[in-house]
Protein backbone atom coordinates (compact mmCIF):
# COMPACT_ATOMS: atom_id res chain seq x y z
CA UNK A 1 0.00 0.00 0.00
CA UNK A 2 1.49 3.31 -1.07
CA UNK A 3 -0.92 5.30 1.06
CA UNK A 4 0.22 6.21 4.52
CA UNK A 5 -2.11 5.61 7.45
CA UNK A 6 -3.01 9.28 7.59
CA UNK A 7 -3.98 9.30 3.94
CA UNK A 8 -6.13 6.20 4.39
CA UNK A 9 -8.01 8.05 7.08
CA UNK A 10 -8.33 11.49 5.50
CA UNK A 11 -9.01 10.59 1.86
CA UNK A 12 -12.68 9.96 2.60
CA UNK A 13 -13.20 13.46 3.85
CA UNK A 14 -12.13 15.38 0.78
CA UNK A 15 -10.01 13.68 -1.87
CA UNK A 16 -12.27 10.64 -2.25
CA UNK A 17 -15.38 12.06 -0.58
CA UNK A 18 -18.06 9.37 -1.06
CA UNK A 19 -20.83 11.84 -1.91
CA UNK A 20 -19.19 14.58 -3.94
CA UNK A 21 -16.29 12.75 -5.64
CA UNK A 22 -17.18 9.05 -5.86
CA UNK A 23 -20.90 9.93 -5.92
CA UNK A 24 -22.11 6.82 -4.08
CA UNK A 25 -25.24 6.59 -1.95
CA UNK A 26 -26.95 9.62 -3.45
CA UNK A 27 -30.48 8.36 -2.86
CA UNK A 28 -30.37 8.50 0.97
CA UNK A 29 -28.20 11.61 0.74
CA UNK A 30 -30.88 13.57 -1.06
CA UNK A 31 -33.73 11.88 0.78
CA UNK A 32 -32.88 12.57 4.41
CA UNK A 33 -31.14 15.95 4.22
CA UNK A 34 -34.18 18.11 4.91
CA UNK A 35 -33.07 18.72 8.50
CA UNK A 36 -29.58 18.88 9.99
CA UNK A 37 -30.43 16.41 12.75
CA UNK A 38 -31.41 13.76 10.18
CA UNK A 39 -28.06 14.20 8.47
CA UNK A 40 -26.28 13.68 11.78
CA UNK A 41 -28.39 10.60 12.63
CA UNK A 42 -27.94 9.00 9.22
CA UNK A 43 -24.23 9.85 9.26
CA UNK A 44 -23.66 8.24 12.65
CA UNK A 45 -25.55 5.14 11.51
CA UNK A 46 -23.38 4.87 8.40
CA UNK A 47 -20.14 5.44 10.36
CA UNK A 48 -21.07 2.62 12.72
CA UNK A 49 -22.12 0.17 10.02
CA UNK A 50 -19.25 1.05 7.69
CA UNK A 51 -16.57 0.76 10.36
CA UNK A 52 -17.78 -2.53 11.80
CA UNK A 53 -18.55 -4.17 8.47
CA UNK A 54 -15.12 -3.09 7.17
CA UNK A 55 -13.39 -4.56 10.23
CA UNK A 56 -15.30 -7.83 10.08
CA UNK A 57 -14.85 -8.24 6.36
CA UNK A 58 -11.12 -7.55 6.68
CA UNK A 59 -10.93 -10.13 9.48
CA UNK A 60 -12.84 -12.77 7.53
CA UNK A 61 -11.40 -12.08 4.07
CA UNK A 62 -9.29 -15.28 4.05
CA UNK A 63 -12.10 -17.34 5.52
CA UNK A 64 -14.79 -16.35 3.02
CA UNK A 65 -14.48 -18.22 -0.32
CA UNK A 66 -14.30 -15.88 -3.29
CA UNK A 67 -17.42 -17.29 -4.96
CA UNK A 68 -19.74 -16.27 -2.13
CA UNK A 69 -18.08 -13.08 -1.02
CA UNK A 70 -20.98 -10.76 -1.99
CA UNK A 71 -23.70 -12.72 -0.11
CA UNK A 72 -21.39 -13.02 2.88
CA UNK A 73 -20.74 -9.26 2.87
CA UNK A 74 -24.44 -8.52 2.60
CA UNK A 75 -25.24 -10.77 5.57
CA UNK A 76 -22.61 -9.02 7.69
CA UNK A 77 -23.75 -5.54 6.62
CA UNK A 78 -27.44 -6.39 7.10
CA UNK A 79 -26.76 -7.63 10.63
CA UNK A 80 -25.10 -4.37 11.62
CA UNK A 81 -27.80 -2.27 9.98
CA UNK A 82 -30.49 -4.16 11.86
CA UNK A 83 -28.61 -3.58 15.11
CA UNK A 84 -28.46 0.17 14.37
CA UNK A 85 -32.15 0.15 13.49
CA UNK A 86 -33.21 -1.55 16.72
CA UNK A 87 -30.99 0.62 18.90
CA UNK A 88 -32.23 3.84 17.25
CA UNK A 89 -35.85 2.74 17.54
CA UNK A 90 -35.38 2.10 21.25
CA UNK A 91 -33.29 5.12 22.26
CA UNK A 92 -33.77 7.90 19.68
CA UNK A 93 -37.26 7.29 18.25
CA UNK A 94 -37.52 10.82 16.81
CA UNK A 95 -34.54 10.28 14.51
CA UNK A 96 -35.71 6.73 13.79
CA UNK A 97 -39.04 8.09 12.53
CA UNK A 98 -37.42 10.87 10.51
CA UNK A 99 -35.01 8.50 8.74
CA UNK A 100 -37.87 6.15 7.87
CA UNK A 101 -37.15 3.78 5.01
CA UNK A 102 -33.64 5.13 4.48
CA UNK A 103 -32.37 3.46 7.64
CA UNK A 104 -32.97 -0.16 6.55
CA UNK A 105 -31.79 0.89 3.10
CA UNK A 106 -28.26 1.42 4.48
CA UNK A 107 -27.93 -2.32 3.74
CA UNK A 108 -27.85 -1.60 0.03
CA UNK A 109 -26.06 1.74 0.33
CA UNK A 110 -23.38 1.51 -2.33
CA UNK A 111 -20.79 3.18 -0.10
CA UNK A 112 -20.77 0.29 2.33
CA UNK A 113 -20.69 -2.56 -0.17
CA UNK A 114 -18.33 -0.46 -2.29
CA UNK A 115 -15.81 -0.02 0.52
CA UNK A 116 -16.15 -3.67 1.53
CA UNK A 117 -15.38 -4.82 -2.00
CA UNK A 118 -12.82 -2.16 -2.97
CA UNK A 119 -10.96 -1.72 0.30
CA UNK A 120 -11.67 -4.07 3.19
CA UNK A 121 -11.46 -7.26 1.12
CA UNK A 122 -7.78 -6.67 0.35
CA UNK A 123 -6.43 -4.54 3.17
CA UNK A 124 -5.45 -5.09 6.79
CA UNK A 125 -7.94 -4.86 9.64
CA UNK A 126 -6.45 -1.65 11.01
CA UNK A 127 -6.43 0.09 7.61
CA UNK A 128 -10.03 -1.01 6.99
CA UNK A 129 -11.03 0.38 10.36
CA UNK A 130 -9.47 3.77 9.50
CA UNK A 131 -11.02 3.69 6.03
CA UNK A 132 -14.45 3.00 7.54
CA UNK A 133 -14.24 5.90 9.96
CA UNK A 134 -12.76 8.26 7.36
CA UNK A 135 -15.31 7.41 4.67
CA UNK A 136 -18.13 7.54 7.23
CA UNK A 137 -16.98 10.94 8.44
CA UNK A 138 -16.76 12.22 4.87
CA UNK A 139 -20.30 10.98 4.26
CA UNK A 140 -21.58 12.55 7.48
CA UNK A 141 -19.94 15.92 6.81
CA UNK A 142 -21.37 15.95 3.29
CA UNK A 143 -24.85 15.20 4.62
CA UNK A 144 -24.53 17.95 7.23
CA UNK A 145 -23.35 20.44 4.59
CA UNK A 146 -26.27 19.68 2.26
CA UNK A 147 -28.78 19.59 5.10
CA UNK A 148 -27.51 22.86 6.55
CA UNK A 149 -27.88 24.72 3.25
CA UNK A 150 -31.29 23.18 2.54
CA UNK A 151 -32.69 23.82 5.99
CA UNK A 152 -31.33 27.34 6.48
CA UNK A 153 -32.48 28.62 3.09
CA UNK A 154 -35.49 26.35 2.58
CA UNK A 155 -37.07 26.53 6.01
CA UNK A 156 -35.22 29.27 7.93
CA UNK A 157 -34.32 26.93 10.78
CA UNK A 158 -31.48 24.73 12.00
CA UNK A 159 -32.77 21.63 13.77
CA UNK A 160 -30.31 20.04 16.19
CA UNK A 161 -30.85 17.59 19.01
CA UNK A 162 -33.22 18.81 21.75
CA UNK A 163 -31.51 19.04 25.14
CA UNK A 164 -33.15 20.27 28.36
CA UNK A 165 -34.88 23.60 27.86
CA UNK A 166 -33.46 23.98 24.34
CA UNK A 167 -35.97 22.45 21.94
CA UNK A 168 -33.35 21.89 19.27
CA UNK A 169 -34.62 24.37 16.70
CA UNK A 170 -32.71 27.56 15.90
CA UNK A 171 -34.77 30.07 13.93
CA UNK A 172 -33.06 32.40 11.49
CA UNK A 173 -34.81 35.78 11.58
CA UNK A 174 -35.44 36.92 8.01
CA UNK A 175 -35.33 33.52 6.31
CA UNK A 176 -37.87 32.01 8.69
CA UNK A 177 -40.56 34.27 7.28
CA UNK A 178 -39.40 34.22 3.67
CA UNK A 179 -37.85 30.81 3.02
CA UNK A 180 -36.85 29.50 -0.40
CA UNK A 181 -39.21 26.50 -0.27
CA UNK A 182 -37.89 24.75 -3.36
CA UNK A 183 -34.74 23.77 -1.48
CA UNK A 184 -36.62 21.50 0.92
CA UNK A 185 -38.31 19.71 -1.97
CA UNK A 186 -36.75 16.93 -4.05
CA UNK A 187 -36.03 19.26 -6.98
CA UNK A 188 -34.10 21.61 -4.71
CA UNK A 189 -32.00 18.72 -3.42
CA UNK A 190 -30.94 17.80 -6.94
CA UNK A 191 -30.24 21.43 -7.87
CA UNK A 192 -28.09 21.95 -4.79
CA UNK A 193 -26.28 18.65 -5.38
CA UNK A 194 -25.43 19.88 -8.89
CA UNK A 195 -24.02 23.17 -7.60
CA UNK A 196 -21.99 21.48 -4.88
CA UNK A 197 -20.62 18.90 -7.33
CA UNK A 198 -19.64 21.74 -9.68
CA UNK A 199 -17.88 23.50 -6.81
CA UNK A 200 -15.96 20.37 -5.82
CA UNK A 201 -14.95 19.75 -9.44
CA UNK A 202 -13.75 23.34 -9.81
CA UNK A 203 -11.87 23.16 -6.54
CA UNK A 204 -10.08 19.88 -7.25
CA UNK A 205 -9.20 20.88 -10.84
CA UNK A 206 -7.77 24.18 -9.60
CA UNK A 207 -5.69 22.28 -7.08
CA UNK A 208 -4.25 20.05 -9.80
CA UNK A 209 -3.31 23.02 -11.96
CA UNK A 210 -1.26 24.64 -9.21
CA UNK A 211 0.71 21.39 -8.80
Amino acid at each position, binding site marked *: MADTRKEVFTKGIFKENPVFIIMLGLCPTLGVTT*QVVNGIGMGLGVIFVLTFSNVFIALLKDFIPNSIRIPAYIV*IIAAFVTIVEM*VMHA*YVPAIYNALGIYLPLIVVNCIILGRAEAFASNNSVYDSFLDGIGMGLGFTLSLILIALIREVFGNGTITLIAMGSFDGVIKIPLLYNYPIRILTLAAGALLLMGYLKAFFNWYSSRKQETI
Partner: protein
Amino acid sequence: MNKIVKVGVTLLIISSFAATSLAVVNKITEPKIAEYEAKVLEDALKEVSGEFEVGSQREISSNDTIKALYLLEDNNGEHTGYILQLEGTGYGGPMTLMAGFLTGGEIIDAKLLNNSETPGLGKKAENKTYMDKFKMTGSLEKEVPIKKEMLDKGDADAVSGSTVTFSGIAKTLAKGSEYVKNLGGK
Protein backbone atom coordinates in the same frame (compact mmCIF):
# COMPACT_ATOMS: atom_id res chain seq x y z
CA MET B 1 -18.85 -31.58 -4.05
CA ASN B 2 -16.36 -30.71 -1.36
CA LYS B 3 -16.30 -27.13 -2.55
CA ILE B 4 -20.07 -26.78 -2.29
CA VAL B 5 -20.04 -28.15 1.25
CA LYS B 6 -17.26 -25.77 2.24
CA VAL B 7 -19.08 -22.77 0.76
CA GLY B 8 -22.36 -23.80 2.40
CA VAL B 9 -20.80 -24.32 5.79
CA THR B 10 -19.02 -20.94 5.60
CA LEU B 11 -22.28 -19.15 4.81
CA LEU B 12 -24.02 -21.08 7.57
CA ILE B 13 -21.42 -20.03 10.14
CA ILE B 14 -21.59 -16.36 9.13
CA SER B 15 -25.39 -16.35 9.13
CA SER B 16 -25.68 -18.04 12.51
CA PHE B 17 -23.26 -15.55 14.05
CA ALA B 18 -25.31 -12.70 12.56
CA ALA B 19 -28.57 -14.22 13.82
CA THR B 20 -27.20 -14.75 17.33
CA SER B 21 -25.96 -11.18 17.68
CA LEU B 22 -29.30 -9.86 16.38
CA ALA B 23 -31.18 -11.98 18.90
CA VAL B 24 -29.09 -10.53 21.73
CA VAL B 25 -29.65 -6.92 20.62
CA ASN B 26 -33.35 -7.59 20.10
CA LYS B 27 -33.63 -8.98 23.62
CA ILE B 28 -32.22 -5.72 25.00
CA THR B 29 -34.12 -3.24 22.84
CA GLU B 30 -37.52 -4.95 22.53
CA PRO B 31 -39.04 -3.82 25.86
CA LYS B 32 -37.87 -0.24 25.23
CA ILE B 33 -39.46 -0.19 21.78
CA ALA B 34 -42.74 -1.67 23.05
CA GLU B 35 -42.82 0.90 25.85
CA TYR B 36 -42.28 3.74 23.39
CA GLU B 37 -44.93 2.48 20.95
CA ALA B 38 -47.45 2.12 23.77
CA LYS B 39 -46.74 5.67 24.96
CA VAL B 40 -47.18 7.13 21.46
CA LEU B 41 -50.51 5.32 21.10
CA GLU B 42 -51.74 6.39 24.53
CA ASP B 43 -50.78 10.04 23.95
CA ALA B 44 -52.52 10.10 20.59
CA LEU B 45 -55.68 8.51 22.00
CA LYS B 46 -55.79 11.00 24.84
CA GLU B 47 -55.28 13.94 22.51
CA VAL B 48 -58.23 13.15 20.24
CA SER B 49 -60.68 12.04 22.93
CA GLY B 50 -61.90 15.56 23.85
CA GLU B 51 -63.42 15.54 27.32
CA PHE B 52 -64.22 11.81 27.23
CA GLU B 53 -62.44 8.80 28.64
CA VAL B 54 -60.76 6.29 26.37
CA GLY B 55 -62.41 2.91 26.79
CA SER B 56 -61.50 -0.51 25.48
CA GLN B 57 -60.45 -1.47 21.98
CA ARG B 58 -63.00 -3.33 19.89
CA GLU B 59 -62.01 -6.02 17.40
CA ILE B 60 -63.07 -5.03 13.89
CA SER B 61 -62.42 -6.36 10.42
CA SER B 62 -60.08 -3.62 9.21
CA ASN B 63 -60.17 -2.38 5.62
CA ASP B 64 -57.94 -0.05 3.57
CA THR B 65 -58.80 3.01 5.64
CA ILE B 66 -60.01 1.89 9.05
CA LYS B 67 -57.34 0.07 11.02
CA ALA B 68 -58.49 0.04 14.65
CA LEU B 69 -61.42 1.15 16.80
CA TYR B 70 -61.52 2.29 20.43
CA LEU B 71 -64.63 3.17 22.40
CA LEU B 72 -65.15 6.54 24.12
CA GLU B 73 -67.12 6.93 27.35
CA ASP B 74 -68.15 9.83 29.55
CA ASN B 75 -67.65 9.95 33.33
CA ASN B 76 -70.64 7.68 34.01
CA GLY B 77 -69.34 4.97 31.72
CA GLU B 78 -71.92 5.89 29.10
CA HIS B 79 -70.81 5.17 25.51
CA THR B 80 -70.42 8.50 23.67
CA GLY B 81 -68.22 7.96 20.66
CA TYR B 82 -65.32 6.22 18.98
CA ILE B 83 -61.68 6.71 18.18
CA LEU B 84 -60.56 5.36 14.84
CA GLN B 85 -57.06 4.72 13.65
CA LEU B 86 -57.14 5.59 9.97
CA GLU B 87 -54.78 5.26 7.07
CA GLY B 88 -54.76 7.63 4.11
CA THR B 89 -52.46 8.77 1.34
CA GLY B 90 -50.71 12.15 1.30
CA TYR B 91 -48.11 13.78 -0.91
CA GLY B 92 -45.28 11.65 0.49
CA GLY B 93 -47.13 8.31 0.68
CA PRO B 94 -49.15 6.65 3.42
CA MET B 95 -50.16 8.63 6.51
CA THR B 96 -51.58 7.36 9.80
CA LEU B 97 -54.28 9.41 11.52
CA MET B 98 -55.98 9.08 14.87
CA ALA B 99 -59.42 10.67 15.09
CA GLY B 100 -62.16 10.86 17.71
CA PHE B 101 -65.83 10.86 16.62
CA LEU B 102 -69.13 11.36 18.40
CA THR B 103 -71.67 8.61 17.74
CA GLY B 104 -73.32 10.85 15.12
CA GLY B 105 -70.11 11.00 13.07
CA GLU B 106 -68.95 14.48 14.18
CA ILE B 107 -65.19 14.78 14.50
CA ILE B 108 -64.04 15.62 18.04
CA ASP B 109 -60.38 16.03 17.17
CA ALA B 110 -57.76 14.38 15.00
CA LYS B 111 -54.02 13.92 14.98
CA LEU B 112 -51.60 13.11 12.19
CA LEU B 113 -49.17 10.39 13.25
CA ASN B 114 -46.69 8.66 10.92
CA ASN B 115 -46.26 10.48 7.62
CA SER B 116 -43.65 11.49 5.07
CA GLU B 117 -45.06 14.88 4.10
CA THR B 118 -42.78 17.74 3.05
CA PRO B 119 -41.30 19.64 5.99
CA GLY B 120 -42.56 23.22 6.08
CA LEU B 121 -45.56 22.41 3.85
CA GLY B 122 -47.59 19.24 4.38
CA LYS B 123 -45.81 18.49 7.62
CA LYS B 124 -47.59 21.49 9.17
CA ALA B 125 -50.60 19.19 9.46
CA GLU B 126 -48.90 17.75 12.54
CA ASN B 127 -49.61 21.03 14.37
CA LYS B 128 -52.44 20.89 16.84
CA THR B 129 -54.35 23.81 15.33
CA TYR B 130 -54.37 22.29 11.83
CA MET B 131 -57.24 19.97 12.69
CA ASP B 132 -59.42 22.83 14.02
CA LYS B 133 -61.08 23.22 10.63
CA PHE B 134 -62.36 19.64 10.81
CA LYS B 135 -63.70 19.83 14.34
CA MET B 136 -67.44 19.17 14.69
CA THR B 137 -67.80 18.52 10.98
CA GLY B 138 -69.07 15.19 9.70
CA SER B 139 -72.66 15.50 10.96
CA LEU B 140 -75.61 15.20 8.59
CA GLU B 141 -75.93 19.01 8.42
CA LYS B 142 -72.25 19.84 8.09
CA GLU B 143 -70.08 17.50 6.06
CA VAL B 144 -66.32 17.13 6.33
CA PRO B 145 -64.67 19.76 4.07
CA ILE B 146 -62.97 17.57 1.49
CA LYS B 147 -62.34 20.41 -0.99
CA LYS B 148 -60.51 23.65 -0.41
CA GLU B 149 -63.55 25.63 -1.58
CA MET B 150 -65.49 24.31 1.40
CA LEU B 151 -63.17 26.06 3.85
CA ASP B 152 -63.19 29.63 5.17
CA LYS B 153 -60.86 31.97 3.33
CA GLY B 154 -58.26 31.96 6.12
CA ASP B 155 -58.17 28.17 6.39
CA ALA B 156 -58.03 27.78 2.62
CA ASP B 157 -55.01 30.10 2.42
CA ALA B 158 -53.34 28.13 5.16
CA VAL B 159 -53.52 24.86 3.23
CA SER B 160 -52.51 26.22 -0.16
CA GLY B 161 -49.17 24.79 -1.18
CA SER B 162 -50.08 21.53 0.50
CA THR B 163 -53.42 20.74 -1.10
CA VAL B 164 -52.59 17.06 -1.57
CA THR B 165 -51.92 16.63 2.14
CA PHE B 166 -55.11 18.48 2.99
CA SER B 167 -57.36 16.46 0.72
CA GLY B 168 -55.67 13.23 1.82
CA ILE B 169 -56.46 13.99 5.44
CA ALA B 170 -59.95 15.31 4.69
CA LYS B 171 -60.98 12.31 2.59
CA THR B 172 -59.67 9.90 5.21
CA LEU B 173 -61.55 11.70 7.98
CA ALA B 174 -64.71 11.75 5.86
CA LYS B 175 -64.45 7.97 5.38
CA GLY B 176 -64.03 7.59 9.13
CA SER B 177 -67.09 9.71 9.74
CA GLU B 178 -69.13 7.61 7.31
CA TYR B 179 -67.96 4.45 9.04
CA VAL B 180 -69.03 5.78 12.44
CA LYS B 181 -72.45 6.79 11.08
CA ASN B 182 -72.94 3.27 9.73
CA LEU B 183 -72.21 1.84 13.17
CA GLY B 184 -75.36 3.61 14.30
CA GLY B 185 -74.15 4.33 17.83
CA LYS B 186 -73.50 0.69 18.70
